[in-house]
């Protein structure tokens, strides 16, 4: 009974949240900074949660997220650029190889699927590595993917190192309801990840994180489960990448560098390793602070006749990184630790609902 009540309450809370987000767009307008933050924050939330699934829940230290986002973003863009625009976009490649266009929903799924296939192939060799070696190998693969996408030889597919644009973006799929659309897609994906984490497979992931040897001794096939976590994480990273492309309106492989992965890792850790709601919260805070709240630090400001010192382009990011350092040093467990928002009131572990045996 109590469990059902909690479920209903959570769903109501989510619905209220969605409504508020929708309201922000209606009152502030699609072009407002608030809406931008909500869009990008939501996209990053999905990507951060997908990374948390690996780093926080399965204990795999992977730094390949940017690579899988890249794959997803490119898959989406390449499949959805309207035929009429292909000649212009692929101006150096005679319109490119792909001579068909599919809808944005199948393309989103394809983005996840292609990223997942890449992950499955990459996972075969690298998931046998441990700890930091896994991290550096996945980072390496992300860089390799980027190099391949930029390679002139497959330019007719990826447009080489040039910009891709004119594919359907957030703003022309549901004009005026961009935030709602983003929240729906992201919410659905995160919901699925939550269901997975709280299933018997999710418990196996956590077991691997806590103690590989013991997990294996309990009959959990390490490679199989790691591969599963890796592929699923990449699937959602791919969708996240596609959403990022939809948010940006244009796409270039060059922006998917390792620094992007670091940024997401920072979000995950600030939110709390092993906390989905932490990742979501941290994403919105991170994006809002870096894109919006601190932006005034970048331009000169006069208060009366007083010229506020230090304010100049770039100061925003300095302040922002100091804030991050403070969080990292003084709030080691992040905002949420490994708990979830909805567990805050209850005692640790009570969520598993002791049933009569």
């Amino acid at each position, binding site marked *: 009974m109590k469990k059902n009540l909690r479920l209903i309450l959570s769903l109501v809370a989510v619905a209220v949240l969605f409504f508020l987000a929708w309201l922000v767009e209606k009152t502030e307008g699609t072009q407002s900074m608030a809406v931008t933050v909500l869009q990008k924050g939501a996209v990053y939330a999905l990507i951060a949660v997908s990374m948390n699934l690996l*780093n926080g829940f399965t204990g795999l*230290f992977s730094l390949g997220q940017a690579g899988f986002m890249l794959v997803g973003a490119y898959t989406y863009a390449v499949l959805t650029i309207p035929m009429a625009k292909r000649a212009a976009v692929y101006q150096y490649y005679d319109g490119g190889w792909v001579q068909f266009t599919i809808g944005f929903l199948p393309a989103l799924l394809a983005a996840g699927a292609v990223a997942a296939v890449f992950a499955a192939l990459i996972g075969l*060799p*690298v998931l*046998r*590595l*441990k700890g*930091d*070696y896994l*991290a*550096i*190998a996945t*980072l*390496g*693969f992300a*860089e*390799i993917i*980027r*190099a*391949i996408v*930029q*390679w*002139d030889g497959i330019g007719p597919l990826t447009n080489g190192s040039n910009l891709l644009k004119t594919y359907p973006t957030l703003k022309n799929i549901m004009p005026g309801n961009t935030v709602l659309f983003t929240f729906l897609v992201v919410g659905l994906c995160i919901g699925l990840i939550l269901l997975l984490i709280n299933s018997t497979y999710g418990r196996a992931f956590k077991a691997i994180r806590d103690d590989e*040897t013991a997990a294996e001794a309990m009959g959990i096939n390490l490679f199989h489960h790691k591969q599963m976590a890796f592929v699923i994480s990449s699937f959602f990273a791919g969708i996240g990448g596609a959403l990022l492309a939809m948010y940006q309106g244009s796409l270039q492989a060059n922006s998917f560098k*390792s*620094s992007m992965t*670091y*940024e997401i*890792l*920072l979000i995950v*850790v600030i939110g709390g*390793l092993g906390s989905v709601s932490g990742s979501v919260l941290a994403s919105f805070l991170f994006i809002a602070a870096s894109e919006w709240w601190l932006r005034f630090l970048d331009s000169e400001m006069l208060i009366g006749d007083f010229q506020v010192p230090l304010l*100049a*382009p*770039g*100061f925003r*990011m*300095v302040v*922002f*990184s*100091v804030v*991050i*350092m403070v969080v*990292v*040093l003084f709030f*080691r467990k992040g905002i949420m630790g490994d708990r979830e928002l909805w567990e805050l009131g209850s005692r640790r572990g009570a969520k598993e609902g002791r049933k009569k045996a």
Partner: protein
Amino acid sequence: MFNTILPYLLAGISVGGQYALIAVGYTLVYGILRLINFAHGDIFTAAGFFMVYLAASLPVGLSIPLVILLTVALGFTVERVAYKPLRTAPRMSIMISAIGVSYLLQNLMWYLTGGLAKQYPGLPGLSGTVQIGPATTKIVTIATPFLTIALVVALVMLINHTKVGMAMRAVSVDFETAQLMGIKINSVISVTFVIGSAMAAIGSMLYFTNYTAVTPTIGAMPGLKAFVAAVFGGIGSIPGAMIGALIIGISENLIKAAGWTAFSDAFTFALLIVVLLFRPTGLFGEKTTDKV
């Protein structure tokens, strides 16, 4: 054939030597703290900026030691402020702190320098050009490998034959036991960062003499590659780091010679992954077994 490859080979050996000097910092720190010091590449960049600004007002002879001093001070401070408080925290926390420091240093340099590339001053004796067979190159290209080998040998001697070196080795084998044996962990770690930063400073002088534009993010790639080199050679092993760096430097330039420029960075990582699959702890790394 040889004539076309020679300049690439020279560039490879030279850049390999420079990677080696950066890689030493990674490998020493990793050996002791098991920490990928993501900020190391940015310390390398900072050394570049120090020289840019110092040489603008001071003679080069004075700037060089000052740059090393400032870089060492920076490395030392980073360790004290960002890593020391996390000594007992999980490894992931320190790693994140390193990423945070890297982020902060890049943004700080971006802010202070205005985000534009700065011209690195010419260093006397290194910036001149020489003719080697059919290839023209800067003196630094030739000097780098010798200087690198000399420094690495000196460092290995230091580690093998001095008291502080012995302490470093002890700490890297077993952190807790070394502490119980009365080794002052914090000073050993500081020494490690000092050595690593000094090497990075020298590396930056060699590197930027060749590649004269210093930007806030320029250190990221060489840093990453130096780390790859350290892993490649077997992290914790100084000769391993040097050999790894040379292999990476040479192979990435040979890839360019073959006309696959777009893949020169990617190839480095591909090489690393292949090596890790066959030797999971790198070329010269020690094999570890989990205790159950």
